[in-house]
């Protein structure tokens, strides 16, 4: 990764500006209640980790944030938009400001890396100028250290590379908020550490607020300013890693002990 462009200033969380606020969020699938009283808030330039076991509804939670799923009840405010009540056009407007890195990277298999990155530029911003596209694509790829993959297909890349391309594809739209769904799952520890590093760099360079969804305690510790635990569909124990470690919650201790 090209470390020379990292700004030296340390990140300052702007506590006066709430970019995401979720209150009493509930979501069920059929009889099964997946989210039950989730409360959380994210401030500008803050990285929040949401820690929870597999199947605890973490993916459902961030899909509610971008309006991919509709909650049964509760408030979701993102950048001043009330998400559940948005029209399609407003939702689009909001989504352009939110980057979403998917659990499985979700790169478009049928397209090359260049086309993957072009896709949102052409279709959202209406940029068709070849040179401008090229500039933006190369800048974004450089950001994640993968310029050489530009003409490859997603199937030719490793899991960690796919994750980084996925992040580059969202960064190309200059989002104000980043949502990461299990950024390190399925990666070896070294690659995972690189991704963690990248998440911090993105925050520092783009001044984004982020939610990092994870079941990986070391990812949560390294990438986040604050951690919320999602246990049985409820958000609990809001605090820094050290604060969480000091509380003696049974469910959480199992995480720390692994």
């Amino acid at each position, binding site marked *: 990764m090209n470390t020379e462009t990292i700004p030296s200033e340390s990140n300052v969380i702007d506590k006066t500006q709430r970019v995401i606020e979720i209150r009493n969020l509930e979501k069920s699938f059929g009889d099964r209640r997946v989210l039950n009283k989730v409360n959380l808030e994210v401030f500008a330039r803050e990285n929040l980790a949401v820690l929870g076991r597999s199947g605890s509804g973490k993916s459902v939670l961030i899909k509610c944030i971008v309006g991919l799923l509709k909650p049964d009840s509760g408030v979701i405010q993102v950048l001043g938009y009330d998400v559940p009540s948005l029209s399609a056009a407003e939702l689009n407007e909001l*989504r*352009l400001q*939110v980057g*979403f890195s998917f659990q*499985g990277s*979700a790169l478009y*298999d049928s397209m090359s890396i260049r086309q993957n990155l072009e*896709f949102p530029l052409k*279709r*959202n911003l209406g940029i068709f100028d070849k040179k401008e596209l090229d500039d933006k694509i190369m800048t974004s790829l450089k950001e994640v250290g993968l310029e050489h993959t530009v003409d490859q297909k997603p199937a030719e890349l490793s899991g960690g590379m796919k994750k980084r391309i996925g992040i580059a594809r969202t960064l190309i739209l200059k989002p104000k908020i980043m949502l990461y769904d299990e950024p390190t799952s399925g990666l070896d520890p070294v690659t995972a550490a690189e991704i963690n590093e990248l998440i911090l760099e993105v925050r520092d360079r783009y001044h984004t607020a982020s939610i990092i969804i994870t079941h990986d305690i070391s990812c949560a510790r390294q990438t986040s300013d604050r951690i919320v635990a999602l246990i049985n569909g409820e958000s609990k124990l809001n605090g820094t890693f050290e604060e969480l470690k000091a509380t003696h919650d049974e469910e959480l201790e199992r995480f720390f002990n692994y």
Partner: protein
Amino acid sequence: MAVVWTRTNGEIFPQLSNIIFDRSHQKPHTRSTTHNMLLARVLLTSLKSFCMKLTKALTNVATIYRFVVRFFKEAIFPPYEWRELLNQCFTIGNKSLFLITFTCFLAGIVFTKQSQPSLASFGAESWLPSLVSQGVIRSLGPLITGLICAGKLGSNMGAELGSMQVTEQIDAMEVSGTRPFSYLVVTRVLAATLMLPLLVMYADGVALLGSFIMVNSFNDSSLVLFFNEVTASINYIDVTSSIVKAALFGFAIGIISCYAGYHSENGTTGVGKAANTAVVASMIFIFIIDLIVLQSLNLIR
């Protein structure tokens, strides 16, 4: 559910359950009340499961309805996806052309050869070109093309969109504001609707060519003569209805296959299921549409 069923099923047949569970020590009176209660429970559970199935079927109908409405809305109002539409048209033509050529050519030969003896037995062998041309244009050409495309395009669209759905690629397009529905679904359905008529016309031509070769082997008639007889025996309604039918086939294949793919779930098994549903449902609908068009034509004629 399964547990309840096996238990209650045993109780419906009192003798059997008595033998199995050895209830001889129970008093007859309590036994009959338990039976009544259990019978009520069986009825209730089956009623409940029936209601659940009905609700599920109705929700499915509702989502299909919304899917079709959404298709028309996004197809009619801009922005239009010309480039991707062209791309899909080309893909569809490219994918099915060879198979259609092959199958229709053979079908033309077989159909002609099979019709020849029966016509000859009436001494009406000279009607062979007109019989064949009506058979090919009204029925054989559209049907073969429709079925080939249902297999080829249906499985392709179902699997492609299905795998995009289960690997969250469609979600990724959705959250980057790139309107996946119009990009993926509208273009495919429109392309199928536009291309099927072209393919059917081509298929008719190939089938008639096969048929000509057969006719020529019987009586050495010239190509010009054969096609004169063909054009004389088919009318405007035959051609128009065949084109309309083909467009309906294309629309059905496109919308069914895209629906199956777009709404697939449960990971990789869901992709296989989507492709399968796409092909089977498309084929069934092709026969249904064929019948409906035939009936409506009979009303017009």
